[in-house]
């Protein structure tokens, strides 16, 4: 069943000047699932995430994507291979319109990105696809607004639309719901669920109810090591997890 594994970390370790943030992590993400990474603060979730998306280089260990070793690849390269991340703090191009934001992601496959002598109108053929994506995330009324003018939640939606434009096989989301109000959380969670239908998602998230609702598999990290893994029901009943992460309220802290 190994070919079912789209992204894999083997013995992943990251040390910062003697401090071991991630220790011998073996992680397997199956194709077509939503996989969540949770754990107490400082457990190493973001670090694992950054290692997988090449924004950090591992001290030891190996990262395989579709069976290929990408341990030494550059961030831009893995994006080209279909492994795309989102940022913890919303990442849009503020002074481009929503349409242009999405179009920037769509235009690369045209192969004209270095063509400074071509007219911008050669990009108009992308508009239809861009508008479809925008429609998907319910941003149609905003399509011609500058991204800077969007409210926070909509920015997140735009970011997801932009990411989808790359048609990634794997999406990595770092705390996609952080800082959102209740009204946005539900919408965004639903959106993630929808877009995940045809791809693989790995996310870091503290909002347990969302994690419970969305994810197929949950990996719990503690002090850089994997503490437990499995579906929510299993993991949430693990005593160690309760002690290290959920606390007595069993995660009731969050709405």
């Amino acid at each position, binding site marked *: 069943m190994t070919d079912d594994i789209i992204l894999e970390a083997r013995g992943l370790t990251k040390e910062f000047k003697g401090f071991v943030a991630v220790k011998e992590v073996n992680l397997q993400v199956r194709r077509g699932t939503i996989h969540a990474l949770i754990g107490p603060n400082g457990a190493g979730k973001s670090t694992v995430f950054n290692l997988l998306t090449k924004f950090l280089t591992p001290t030891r260990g190996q990262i395989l994507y579709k069976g290929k070793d990408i341990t030494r690849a550059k961030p831009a390269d893995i994006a080209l291979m279909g492994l795309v991340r989102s*940022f913890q703090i919303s990442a849009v191009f503020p002074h481009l319109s929503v349409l242009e934001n999405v179009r920037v992601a769509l*235009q690369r496959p045209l192969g004209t990105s270095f063509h400074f002598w071509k007219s911008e109108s050669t990009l108009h053929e992308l508009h239809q696809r861009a508008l479809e994506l925008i429609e998907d995330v319910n941003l149609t009324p905003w399509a011609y607004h500058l991204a800077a003018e969007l409210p926070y939640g909509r920015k997140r939606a735009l970011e997801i639309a932009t990411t989808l434009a790359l048609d990634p096989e794997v999406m990595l989301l770092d705390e996609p719901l952080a800082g959102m109000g209740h009204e946005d959380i539900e919408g965004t969670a639903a959106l993630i669920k929808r877009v995940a239908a045809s791809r693989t998602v790995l996310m870091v998230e503290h909002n347990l109810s969302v994690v419970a609702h969305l994810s197929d598999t949950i990996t719990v990290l503690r002090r850089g090591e994997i503490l437990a893994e499995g579906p929510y029901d299993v993991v949430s009943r693990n005593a160690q997890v309760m002690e290290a992460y959920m606390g007595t309220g069993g995660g009731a802290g969050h709405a």
Partner: protein
Amino acid sequence: MTAASQTTNQAAPKTATVALRGPDAGTARTALLFAVGLAVAGAAPFALYPVFVMKVLCFALFACAFNLLIGFAGLLSFGHAAFFGGAAYVTAHSVKVWGLPPEAGLLLGVLAGAFLGLIFGVIAIRRQGIYFAMITLALSQMVFFMALQMKFTGGEDGIQGVPRGVLFGIFDLTQPLTMYYAVLAIFVVGFALIWRTVHSPFGQVLKAIRENEPRAISLGYRTDRYKLVAFVLSASLAGLAGGTKALVFQLASLTDVQWQMSGEVVLMTLLGGMGTLFGPVVGAGLVVTLESYLAATSLPVPVVIGAIFVVCVLLFRRGIVGEILARLPGAR
């Protein structure tokens, strides 16, 4: 790694400057303005002193090339004199000593600009903001010292008495009006190329990089390469301007490679309006006029130029054209 630490600092994706908006103003209006400008420039040699207008055009092209970088890629180069002056030397030398026709001389000048741009770019492009400015400044100072020491540049005498020659074997550039229209044509070509670049697929990516570089990386763009291409493009156009200037004045001298020249082009762009298409043209016109006016007064030139700098930065950051655009209804 670079990018990792950048992500943590992305709270406010950097827009290079407040002034860097405006470029999206309506194409129709741009075209109209351009037509008017062209008409004015076409008639100018009959009303104004042609050499003066040619000088303005050379500097306008130089400033536009510079603006391509600061205004549309968010990179402040403080070393553009190296491309401008370096190309002037190469054009002057190839025309005078090798006896090449002016078009070949200009082409070599452009290539020299591009080559220097490539070297500067490879070294500087990995750093942003003020670092980038300081590195380009330092590198251009190195080019200055080399220009001073190398034999072919004629040291502080410069290359003098450069023949203008016959363009494409047809246009005799020793005729002042022919020279004038040749310079105008060069300017128009350069300007059009810049306009095209800004409104091209490449320009789009550049804008995206300026707005949020880590995000552009995560979308699969190797941003350094885009910045490098923009840099080389800008350097080549600066080279075109420098080569043309060498033909107009029939000389190439140290003035053109000095760091003060880099400062001057920054001033032109700032005064006219960074990130606006026409701003640098207006700025260049003003600065050149001012300098030729000041030459005949007893006012200390650097003090006046410095004061304009300070005033622009403190009160007038959008520049003249930027300010007009900002006030024009519907333009933003």
